[in-house]
Each structure stands twice: as structure tokens, then as C-alpha cells.
């Protein structure tokens, strides 16, 4: 045991010889988590997509459209001048600009000449979302006018109006009626968040926190391969042959040290998530520990196996960063896995990052506990067993 601790301590000293290591250990992971979460540590900011609105009509109808957009759950309208909107759009700082030209009033709606304009950045998902929100808003505003017009037509079909004034009066009273019916309409859809109702508030930043934790912890664990290559290149592994230390002791000491540091790094990042981002990391501490430990073991085992294939430290450094980044991305740590095609979603089950991410999301977003994360922890430990076995079998001092 003393030997294992000595090897562990040696690895910690080696890793933190340069103060730059702290940058990768804690500074960059926090910066990335902060920025990718939108730089919104309080989580109180309006999550809606910003939509620039140019209201040149400034009529009751145009204000009603803007009001409907303000009620939207998807967009946050900001009324600006045409020049300001055009400038922001040209600089690609605005995904979409909605123009309500002058002349949009009840009369234009009645005679069917009302036309509004939407300027969208090409191939931009936010612009598409804005379009849906605008269509819903103008549909709501239009529908009361359409309903009133329909009532006018029904009335006309049964008894002609005596004058245009009578027709207009009937239209206006019908419009008022339609608007009050619309306002009194009950909510017909309710959205319930799965499992987490009343227990965990859904927070999209949880994805970022978990994803960045995995990314920044897995890369140095894959880097165990670099530590093996370094010692092999320097000949220090060969020197171990002259000591009464077994291969198992050396491997266990190295891996134990790296896993210990990974757990410390995870603890710091989880603390950042709890304190700065107010995320629910601490809800099930034991289950969290299990999933973190299983993830760290799986990644360390992969690094051990890599170390037996790679010859130089330079190769190992490059490949561990590359594998770390690619595995993280494909495992859903950077973008939700739901955005990937179904075939890719199935294929990436071979990656430990996928299971680590699922386990953490079970705890953070799905309100799960120990029973819910056991399958993911089991798979991660399975990875660990396989890769440690391959690593130990292939490990050579020279």
C-alpha cells in the first residue's frame, strides 16, 4: 500500500510540476462551462430567442401583434428602428427581423391587403423558430378579424346590411366579441416535465455542466497513456524492474493517483455547478459518487489501454486530446444526443462518454437516484474491466 501511495504521490507531483496544469485542471473547465451555458450563472435571464421588431404601423393591430409576440414562449420581441434592425441583421447579430409596415390596421386586415415581412438569416434554426412564433401571433390577431368577417358574411347571407356604416358597426361589434372570446379561451395544453415535477427544476445548463465535466476529466484520464509513454521513453519504467515492485503495483498506483485527481477535479466542478450555477448536483450524493467513480474508472482504463499501443509522449498527448474531444462530442457532452440521427445515437453507445453523460443526466434532469443510474454505472464498470484487462495484458516496461 505504501508503494501505491508513493507512486500516486510521484504522479501528482509530476502532473503539477507546471502551474499551467491548473489551467486545464480547473480554470478552463470552469470558463468553458460558464461560456457554453450562455454566461448566465444566475439562470434568471430570459431564455427566449431575441427577435427584432420594426413597428412602422404603430396601430392597435400592430401593437396587438407585438403583444402576442411578448406572450410567446419562444421569442423575446425588441422593438427597434428599421436602420438599427437592418444594421444588426447585416452584421449577423440578429437571426431574424420582423417588419410591420405602415398601413397595417383593421382596414387592411378587412380588405386582405395586410402584409408583414420577415427577414431571416439563411439556414438558421433560431430564425425558423422566430417564424413559427410570428405565424402563431399573426394567426391569433388575424383570427379575431377573420371570425368577425365570417360573422359579417353570415349576416349578409341572411339579411343584407342597410348601409356600409351598419356593416362596419356589425363588424366592429363582432370583432370585439371575437377578441373577448379569444381572451377568455381556457388553456388547453399543459406541459409536465417527466419525473422531475416539484423536485428538480429543468435547467438546460445542466447539460453543459455535466458535458464539460466529462470532457475535461476524461482528457487527462486518457492522458495516462502519455504518462506511461513518458516513463517508458525516459527509461524509468525499466528501472522499476530492479525494484521489488510488481507490474500490478505500478499500474494500480498510477491509475489510483489519476482517478483520485479526477475525483477531486469532478468535486470542484460539481461544486461550481452547485454554487455558481445552482444546479441540482447534490440531490443524491451517493448515486452521484457512484456514477462519477464509474466514469473515472472507465476513462482511466481506456487511457491505460491506449498507453500500451502508443510509443511516444507526444503521440499520447495528441491522441488523448483528440479522443477526449471526439468522444465527448459524439457522446452528447457538447450537444444533446437527441440532435444526432437515430443510427448515430445507437452507434455511440460504444463510447464511455455516452453512458457517463446519461448517468449524470439521470441524476440532474430526470430526478433519478441510485437505482436509475445503476445500468449506466454497470456499463461504465464493464468498460473499465475490459480496458484494464487489455491494458494489463499488453503492458510492457520497454
Amino acid at each position, binding site marked *: 500500500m505504501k508503494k501505491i501511495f508513493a507512486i500516486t504521490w510521484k504522479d501528482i507531483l509530476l502532473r503539477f510540476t507546471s502551474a499551467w496544469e491548473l489551467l486545464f485542471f480547473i480554470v478552463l473547465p470552469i470558463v468553458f462551462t460558464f461560456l457554453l451555458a450562455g454566461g448566465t450563472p444566475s439562470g434568471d435571464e430570459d431564455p427566449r430567442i431575441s427577435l427584432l421588431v420594426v413597428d412602422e404601423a404603430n396601430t392597435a393591430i400592430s401593437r396587438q401583434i407585438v403583444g402576442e409576440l411578448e406572450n410567446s414562449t419562444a421569442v423575446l420581441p425588441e422593438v427597434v428602428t428599421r436602420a438599427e434592425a437592418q444594421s444588426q441583421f447585416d452584421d449577423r447579430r440578429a437571426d431574424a427581423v420582423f417588419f410591420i409596415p405602415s398601413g397595417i390596421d383593421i382596414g387592411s386586415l378587412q380588405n386582405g391587403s395586410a402584409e408583414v415581412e420577415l427577414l431571416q438569416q439563411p439556414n438558421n434554426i433560431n430564425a425558423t423558430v422566430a*417564424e413559427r412564433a410570428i405565424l402563431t401571433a399573426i394567426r391569433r390577431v388575424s383570427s379575431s378579424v377573420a371570425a368577425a368577417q365570417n360573422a359579417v358574411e353570415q*349576416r349578409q347571407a341572411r339579411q343584407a346590411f342597410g348601409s356600409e356604416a351598419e356593416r362596419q358597426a356589425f363588424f366592429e361589434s363582432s370583432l370585439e366579441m371575437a377578441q373577448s*372570446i379569444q381572451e377568455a379561451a381556457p388553456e388547453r395544453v399543459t406541459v*409536465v416535465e417527466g419525473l422531475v415535477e416539484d423536485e428538480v427544476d429543468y435547467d438546460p445548463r445542466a447539460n453543459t455542466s455535466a458535458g464539460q465535466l466529462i470532457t475535461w476529466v476524461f482528457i487527462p484520464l486518457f492522458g495516462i497513456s502519455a504518462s506511461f509513454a513518458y516513463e517508458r521513453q525516459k527509461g524509468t519504467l525499466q528501472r522499476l524492474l530492479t525494484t521489488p515492485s510488481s507490474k500490478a503495483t505500478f499500474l494500480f498506483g498510477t491509475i489510483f493517483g489519476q482517478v483520485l485527481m479526477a475525483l477531486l477535479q469532478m468535486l470542484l466542478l460539481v461544486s461550481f455547478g452547485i454554487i455558481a450555477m445552482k444546479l441540482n448536483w447534490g440531490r443524491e450524493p451517493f448515486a452521484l459518487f457512484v456514477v462519477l467513480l464509474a466514469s473515472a474508472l472507465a476513462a482511466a482504463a481506456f487511457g491505460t489501454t491506449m498507453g500500451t499501443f502508443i510509443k511516444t509522449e507526444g503521440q499520447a498527448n495528441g491522441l488523448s486530446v483528440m479522443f477526449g474531444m471526439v468522444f465527448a462530442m459524439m457522446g452528447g457532452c457538447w450537444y444533446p444526443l437527441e440532435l444526432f440521427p437515430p443510427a448515430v445515437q445507437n452507434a455511440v453507445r460504444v463510447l464511455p462518454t455516452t453512458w457517463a453523460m446519461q448517468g449524470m443526466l439521470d441524476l440532474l434532469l430526470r430526478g433519478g437516484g441510485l437505482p436509475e443510474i445503476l445500468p449506466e454505472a454497470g456499463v461504465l464498470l464493464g468498460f473499465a474491466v475490459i480496458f484494464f484487462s487489455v491494458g494489463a495484458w499488453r503492458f510492457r516496461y520497454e
Partner: protein
Amino acid sequence: MLKLLLIGLKDLRLMFRDRAALTFMLLAPFLLTVGMGFVTGRFSGGSSGLSDIPVIVVNLDNDQLGDVLAEAFSSQELADLMEPTASSDPEAARRLIDEDQAAAAVIIPEGFTRSVIPAAGTAFDPNYVEPEPVQIEVYANPSRPTSAGVVKAIVDEFVSRVEEGRTSGMTSMLALASSGLLDPQDMEGEARQLFENVEQSESTAITLKKSQEGAQAVEFDILAYMAPGMALMFLMYTVSYGGRSILAERSQGTLPRLLVSPTSASQVLGGKVLGIFFMGVAQIGILILASSVFFGLEWGDTPGLLLLILAAVFGATGWGMLITALSRTPGQVGSIGSAMMLIFGILGGSFINLDQMPAAIRTFSKITPNAWGLDGFTTLALGGTLPSLVEPIGALLIMGAVLFGIAVLLFNRQGMMQN
């Protein structure tokens, strides 16, 4: 000049011999671009990677509106987007969502249709009691927020149409009733007809005219943003790799040996810088070529593209030289270079669109070659030509020149420019 070129080409040859470095410089950005292509739907032809969203539809209403909504999820229009499964057990459906088997469950309760459309002949029954509003439940999977959001949007759209029909029907009923023109039974029939034609109800009082600037000139390919984003990020690694070689030559003693030859220190340094520049151009060039060949990516105006590549590499090389001048050992250059690669990557928009960042960060991002480079590549992808690239190219050239100046001053102070 010939000496500079020879030293530069020698370093370029060395880079191509380092398989590990090549893997990192070329394979990593390529693989990450592939991943981005999946996420953005580039390889599946959509505007996002979303497709075949698993949704469970529980229709307990089994009446007119419930049936229409259930059928909407199986419609041809949504065939690529949705993968609906019918169920009759709301609890089982919720359980499947909790187990992450689907993105959302749409539970249409019994009596939904009746809560919107009263049964025939009941609306004017003096004993008729308006039913309590019945709500459709969207049971959403919190770990699939985007897919669940799409499901909710479809349900919202449907309900909006239902409400439109209801408003129209009721307005007609009430307006005509207040005029005393129609028999109440007839009015109910008319109103029901509007409800029943929910799918056809379309408000045309306001028309939405859409336009996409730049889309007419050239169809924007999202990979034209993602691929250069990744290439520019890994370019920072390449320039620090080159910088590392300068310090490595000094620590290994090959630099003093070079200085014994009739080559001045500034020529050696200039040659090394040229080597870094060549490496950067080779890396970006290969990545651009590969994405054109494998993904059919159109990069836009060729002269603009070539100048932009040269300017972006020049700007990045400036950073590489500054890092080298500030470091004492090759290891330090490697550490700072990797950190800069990641920091500039995120600040420059390689991971997420800069528009999603706070304004202060967007301003700060202007110090990175990534932000200016990406700006230029996006302009090209949107059909821009050389004249529209003046700003990013100018900024990159100024950045490179200023950083070179600072690096040369620092090298001078360290005596690296003296024989």
C-alpha cells in the same frame, strides 16, 4: 530569401514526418466537423439533426378532435420528423418517458372534443352545463428538451387552429343571435361546421412575406461555418507546434549550430516563422480540400478564399510567435498553445455561434484570429467575394503584424536575434 525558404520547407517536412502531430492537426478537426455535421442535420438534409423523434400518443378522447391530433403525428408531412407510437395507457406512456424511451407523450384525455365542441343539440339546451376545459397533456422528457419542444409546438399549433375554429363559430353564433336573425338550432349547425373543418381553417387576414438575404446568391451550407471553425481552432495548435520547434532547437543545441553557418539569427528565425506559416497553410488547405472532396462543401469565391486563408494563418502565426517569445521551454509553448487553442476556439465561435455569447465576450472575441477568420468564411459561404472580405482580412493582417512586432522585440531582448 532562399535560406528562409529552405528553413521553412525543412520545418514543413518535419511536420509531415510527425504522425502524431499530423493526426491531431488533421484528423481531430475532421472528425469533429463530421460530428457537427450530424448535429446540424447536414448529413440528413434537415436544418437540424432532429429526425424520427419518438413520441407516444395516448388518445383517450377517441372523438373528432382527438383523432385528428393523433392522425397529425402519423401524417405524411411529419413522417421524417416524428416516430409516433400509439398507446392506451397514460401511466405506461409516462413511464416510458421517465425511462428515456421517447421524447414526449401526448395524452389526449377523454372528453377533450366535447370540452371544445358541445354534443349536437346540447348547446341550446336550457339544462346544458358547459364542461370544464379538458387539457391535453404533453409529458416531456427533460433530457430531450429540443425534441419535446417540437412535440409541444405541434400540439400548440393544433390547439391554436381548434381555438380559431371555436372563436369563429362562437362569434357567428353570438353576433347573429344578438341580431335575432337565425334559429338557434341552425346557428349551432353552422358553428359545428366550422369546428369540423379545423384542418382547413387558415387565417389569411395578414400575409407573412419571408426573405433570406444571401440565400438567393448561394445556398448556405452549415458546414461552411463548422468546418472552418474547427480548422481555425486546430490552427492555433499548429502555430504553437511550430513555435515549440524554435525553442526545441535552442534547448537541443541545433540553433547555435545553425548560427555557426553563414546564416544570421534573424534569417534563422525568419525561416522558422515561414515554416510555421507553411504548416498553417498546409493544414487549412488540406482540411478545406478534404471537406470539399468528402462533403461536397462549396467554399465560395476562390481568390477571396485563398487570401483569407493566408491572412488567417498570418494572424494565427503572430499569436504562435508571441507565445514562443513569452515561453522558456518547448513544454511551456505546448501548454500555453493548447490552452490558447481551446480558449480561442470557444471565444472565436468554433463551438457555438458567437451570437449566443454575452456582448462583452463578443467584443473580446475580436482578439482571436478565429472570430475574424470565421467571419470571413461565413461571408464567403453567403456568396461574398474578395471586396466583402476587406474587414476580416485587414484585421487579421494587422493582428499578425502587431503580434510579430511584439514577438521580435521580445526575441531581441532575449538575444535570439543576435549572432
